[in-house]
């Protein structure tokens, strides 16, 4: 059974040894989560987040060569990378994306809503391929740490 943990965003990591030497390993507290999928709905996150977690869990169980053309197994790190991007860029009213594994071991989230096609492939936490197409605009960008254009594109799905 997998678990989902809340991770404080905006805190630094404990690279220092201060505190750890005194047995105050703060990181340990965040691992003590019940071994179950997240079921409580947090109003800050979209209602389909649990479904996405289940889908990611399912897809990380694929075998090597799952597409018969030599595809790699989607990694758990890639699952977390996609989950974090979705948590940071979507709203409760964002439509649910389709989650698709890439043959290179990553994940892609896709929306096809209201005349908009949006594909987001999270190659790594700092390499996010975004393809956007609508009646008025079309662009393809690789985003590193500034996700402004991705958030704006996702917000258009609900306007």
């Amino acid at each position: 059974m997998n678990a989902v943990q809340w991770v404080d965003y905006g805190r630094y990591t404990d690279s220092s040894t201060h505190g750890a030497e005194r047995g105050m390993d703060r990181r340990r507290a965040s691992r003590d989560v019940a071994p179950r999928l997240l079921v409580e709905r947090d109003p800050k996150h979209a209602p389909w987040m649990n479904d996405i977690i289940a889908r990611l869990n399912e897809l990380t169980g694929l075998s090597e060569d799952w597409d018969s053309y030599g595809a790699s197994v989607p990694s758990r790190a890639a699952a977390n990378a996609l989950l974090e991007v979705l948590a940071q860029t979507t709203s409760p009213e964002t439509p649910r994306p389709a989650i698709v594994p890439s043959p290179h071991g990553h994940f892609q989230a896709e929306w096809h809503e209201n005349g908009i096609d949006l594909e987001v492939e999270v190659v790594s936490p700092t390499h996010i391929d975004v393809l956007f197409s609508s009646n008025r605009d079309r662009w393809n960008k690789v985003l590193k740490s500034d996700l402004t254009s991705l958030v704006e594109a996702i917000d258009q799905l609900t306007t």
Partner: protein
Amino acid sequence: MAGKSERLPKFDRPPVVEVALVVQFPPLKGFTAAHLGLIWQRFRDRFANVEQHGPSQNRVERTGIKPIPQTLQLTFGGEQTVPRIWMVTKDNSELIQIQSDRFARNWRRYHNRDLDYPTFADQIRPAFVKEFDEFRKLIAELGFGELSIDQCEVTYVNHIRRNEVWSVHSELDRVFVGWSSEYPKIEDQAAESIACRVNHQIIDQGEFVGRLFIEIDSQYVVEKTNGSPQTDFVPIFNVNLVARGQPIGEGDKAVMRFIDLAHEVIVKSFAQVTTKAMHTAWGRTQ
């Protein structure tokens, strides 16, 4: 590098007690505790002692995202967590931290206040460059390929001890410019403990590259005075400055470009947020 150091604030007696230089990378697929043992064998001549700890949580700094206080991470049931090891020198002042997605090089002096701060330019930076290069080559030898660094981090931990400038924690205004002497007593009681958190974005040539985190906490260190059976609880302010962000540009120098920028941001901001009275106490020379 030497030129840049000459423009940064300098103190004869800086209150720094620990410095860490860190890089993060995607988890190495198939990395196990056995590989940690092989890595220690390569560094053991210099880092004779080893400790085991739980892994640190990695973070990626982003901008333009929703203002949520927490994000989500999935932990997979049945997955064995590979620990983090500290490889420590015999005198306990230097260590390397290794886990499946992180390398850190630390200097510290909690255990020996008489140790001189070895300076970033002269010792801390060159040691990191040398040993991280060694680590990268070893990782490649072990079959994990080339490391792809996605975040870098510089941490400075400072212990600001009670001195002629301040004596109780409610006098934080004498140390930190962000606190006010006008902060009142409540029901005639002064503040007993104080914690402050401030974040700033780090921008390089108009582009977001990371964040600076400043944390100030009132704390105590436990000391024994020579010859006395008494244990003293000495008040301090623990001031952490952490700069974390992406490598800047491409190629081999991208990691050090961020680390050098992070060091500069930390040193300058530490001088900006602390008071002139404390600068005098620390022997500011530049």
